[in-house]
C-alpha cells in the first residue's frame, strides 16, 4: 500500500473496552438475569450481585452535534459519562446508581426524549435517508418516522402490547432498513417507469449493462434522435429502479406517482417461529408530506388490530398465522387486490394449496 507517510490508515474503530463502564468490564460475560423495572428501564444483575441499570430513550437518529453534546452531558451527570446506542438507534444510559434513574428520566423527558421501548413495546423505527440524502428515494424517511412515532409514542412509552413490534422504513426497494423482515414495514415505491434522458444516456452509461440490469427484460436498445439509447417496454416494468442504480440517465423519481407501501408480519428473531419476510398489506399510499396522515393512519390501524386481537407474545406474523390472512384483511378493512398476489419467481408457492380454509 502506497500511502502518505504520517497518515494513519486502517487503524479500525476504537476498542470497545475503552468505552465501557467499569461495572461492565468487571462483570463481562457474567450476567445472571435481567428485569424490566418500568417502561424504558432495565436492570441486569450479575453473578457478583452487581446491578447495571439501563435507561433507554428514543432518538430521531438524525442527531446534530448539539444534541450529541447534550447526550454527553446527561451521561456525565447521571452515569459517569457512559452510554451506548442500540441496534434500533435508541440511546441507552448505563447507570450503577439506582437513585439516579428517576431524575435522569425526568431530565430526558424535559429535553423531549421519551423513555421506553423495552420489552413488549413498540421500539424506534429503523430507517434510512430519504430526501435528506439519497438520490434513490421515493419518499422521505425521517418525516414519516417522526409522524408515525408521534402517533404511536404511547406504545413506546409503556402502553401495553402483546409482544415486540418492530417497524422499519426504507425509502426505496434497495431496502437499506431491512424492511423485509419487520412486523410492519413502510416502503417507498416508484410507480412510473424510468424516464430516459436519451441525450445523455450513452455518455454516462454502458448500454449493455443497462439492458442487463433489468430483471424483467423490459429494457431494449433503441436509437432516439440519432443517439443510441434504450427504451423501456412499460408493461414489463415493475419499478425496481435497478436500471437507475446502474445508470443515472434513467430516473424513476416522480412526484405524482411515488409513494408508500405497507408490509406486515416479518420477523428476525428465532423465538417461537422462524425468521420470515414481511408480506404486502397495502400496495400504495400517495406521498403526502409533511405528515403523511394516510400512512400514519394505516400503521395505527394495523397496530390496533394487533393490540386488540393478538395473544400474549404473538408477533404480528404469528398472530396472522393463527387468524389467517382473510381475517387479517377483514379486521383491518384493507382491500385485497390483484397486487397482493405474488407474480415474481416463486409466485406459485404462495398460492393456497390446501383445502384448509376458514369459511365463516
Amino acid at each position: 500500500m502506497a500511502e502518505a507517510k504520517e497518515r494513519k490508515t486502517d487503524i479500525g474503530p476504537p476498542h470497545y473496552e475503552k468505552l465501557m463502564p467499569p461495572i461492565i468490564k468487571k462483570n463481562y460475560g457474567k450476567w445472571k438475569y435481567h428485569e424490566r423495572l418500568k417502561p424504558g428501564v432495565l436492570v441486569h444483575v450479575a453473578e457478583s450481585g452487581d446491578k447495571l441499570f439501563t435507561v433507554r430513550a428514543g432518538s430521531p437518529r438524525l442527531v446534530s452535534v448539539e444534541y450529541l453534546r447534550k447526550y454527553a452531558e446527561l451521561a456525565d451527570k447521571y452515569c459517569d459519562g457512559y452510554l451506548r446506542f442500540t441496534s434500533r438507534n435508541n440511546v441507552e444510559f448505563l447507570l450503577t446508581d439506582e437513585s439516579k434513574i428517576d431524575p435522569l428520566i425526568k431530565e430526558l423527558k424535559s429535553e423531549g426524549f421519551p423513555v421506553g421501548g423495552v420489552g413488549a413495546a413498540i421500539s424506534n423505527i429503523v430507517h434510512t435517508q430519504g430526501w435528506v440524502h439519497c438520490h434513490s428515494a421515493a419518499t422521505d424517511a425521517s418525516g414519516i418516522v417522526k409522524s408515525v412515532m408521534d402517533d404511536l409514542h404511547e406504545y413506546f412509552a409503556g402502553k401495553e402490547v402483546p409482544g415486540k413490534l418492530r417497524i422499519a422504513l426504507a425509502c426505496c426497494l434497495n431496502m437499506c432498513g431491512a424492511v423485509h423482515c419487520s412486523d410492519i414495514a413502510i416502503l417507498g415505491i416508484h410507480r412510473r417507469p424510468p424516464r430516459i434522458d436519451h441525450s445523455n444516456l450513452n455518455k454516462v452509461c454502458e448500454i449493455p449493462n443497462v439492458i442487463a440490469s433489468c430483471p424483467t427484460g423490459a429494457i431494449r436498445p433503441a436509437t432516439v434522435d440519432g443517439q443510441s439509447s434504450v427504451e423501456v417496454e412499460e408493461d414489463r416494468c415493475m419499478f425496481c429502479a435497478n436500471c437507475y442504480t446502474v445508470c443515472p440517465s434513467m430516473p424513476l423519481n416522480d412526484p405524482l406517482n411515488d409513494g408508500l407501501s405497507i408490509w406486515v408480519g416479518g420477523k428476525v428473531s428465532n423465538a417461537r417461529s422462524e425468521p420470515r419476510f414481511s408480506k404486502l398489506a397495502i400496495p400504495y399510499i400517495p406521498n403526502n408530506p409533511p405528515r403523511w396522515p394516510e400512512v400514519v393512519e394505516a400503521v395505527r390501524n394495523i397496530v390496533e388490530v394487533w393490540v386488540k386481537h393478538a395473544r400474549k407474545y404473538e408477533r404480528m406474523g404469528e398472530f396472522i398465522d393463527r387468524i389467517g390472512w382473510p381475517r387479517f384483511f377483514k379486521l383491518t378493512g384493507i382491500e385485497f387486490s390483484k397486487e397482493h398476489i405474488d407474480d415474481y419467481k416463486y409466485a406459485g408457492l404462495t398460492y393456497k394449496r390446501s383445502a384448509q380454509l376458514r369459511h365463516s
Partner: protein
Amino acid sequence: MADSGNGKTPLLDELEKGPWPSFVTQIKSVAEKNPRARALLQLLERSYREKIGHWKHGGIVGVFGYGGGVIGRYSDLPEEYPDVAHFHTLRVNQPSGWFYTSDSLRTLADLWEEHGSGLTNMHGSTGDIILLGTSTDELEPTFEALTNAGFDLGGSGSCVRTPSCCIGQARCEWACYDTLALTHDLTMAFQDELHRPFFPYKFKFKCAGCPNDCVASIARADMSIIGTWRDDIQVDKAAVKAYADDGMNIERDVCGNCPTKCIQWAGKEIDIDNENCVKCMHCINVMPKALSPGKDRGATILLGSKAPILEGAIISSVLIPFIKIEPPYTEIKELTEKIWDFWGEHGKNRERVGELMQRVGLGNFLEEIELEPIPEMIAHPRENPYIFFEEYFEEDEEEGE
C-alpha cells in the same frame, strides 16, 4: 432562488410538533451556525413541497488510499443551494456494541462541527456512525481529524462492510459467545478488505449473541453469526416455581409457544426434551431468572441474507450448525476466505454471496468451499426428481449377464 433565500420552512415546521423527538429540531439546532445544515433544511423543505428528492446519483469521491467509506452526493440544484452542492457522507466505523464515553461523543461532535454539516446519524443501518454531508475538499481533513481521534472509516462499495453486533456479554446474560470481541477482531483482521473494494459486491458480517438476534443478522448480513448452545437448557427449579407462584401461566405461555413442543409443565416442574429443543429462546426469554442457555456454547454460522434487489430478498441459511467461537477465530476466517475466493472467481458483478450460492446450488457451493453437505443445512430435502447424478456406469465397467 426564492426558496433557498426566504428561509421559511413551513412544512418542516410541522414536524417539530408532537411527542417524538424531531429531526427537524436537530437540523435547526445547528442550522444557524452551519451553512450546510441551513442549506439542507431549505433543500429538504423544497423536497417536501415538490414531493421529490433533490440529490443526484453519487460520484466516486473518497479519501486517499481508500476505496470506500464515503458516499458521494451532489445536489441537482447546485446554483440555488451552493452549500450543499457537494454533500458527501462519511461512514465512520463505530465501536463494537455502540459504546461511547461522553468524551468520545464530544470529540466526534467537535470535529464534525468543524468539517461538516454538524449532522450525524447515530447510527446507519449497517452500524456506522454516519457523518452526514460535507464537501469534497473537507474529506481528507475530516479523515485526518478522525484518525487522530482514534476513529477510522467504515465500508462502502464492493467490500467488507462495517461489521456490527449486539451488546452481547457486555450486558446480556444470554450471549453464547463474545460478540464484541469477534466483531472487533474481524473488523481489524479485514481492514484491507474493508477499505479497498475488490469483491463482486458488498459483504456484511453481523454477530448476534443468541437466537434472539438483536442485530437482525439473519436478515441483513452476508455472514450471520448467531450464538447458540448444544447441551441442555439450564434450569433453576426454585425460580421456575417462583414464576408459577407469581401467576405465570407456564402451560399456555411457555409450553404452548415452544415450536417443537418439547417443553412440558407437569404443574410442578418443567421437563425439557433437550434433544428436540431447537434453541429458539422463547422459554428462556419468558423466564429469564429460571432458565438459561446451556453451558456448551458457540454459534451457528449462516450465509447470504440481503435486501430484494435483484433476485428477491434472502434470509441467511445454515452453513455451520455449531462452532465454538474462540480467538483467534481461525476457522471462521479460513471459511470466510474460502467463500471470498470462490465468490471472487465466480461471482458476477453485483452478485451477493447468497445469490451466488443459489445460482450455483448449495451442493456445488459446498464442494467449492470444502464443506460436507449435512441435513442441518436444509429445511427439507428436494421435492423434485431432477437429480443431477454426476456419473453413470459404462457398459465395459461391468459384465452384462
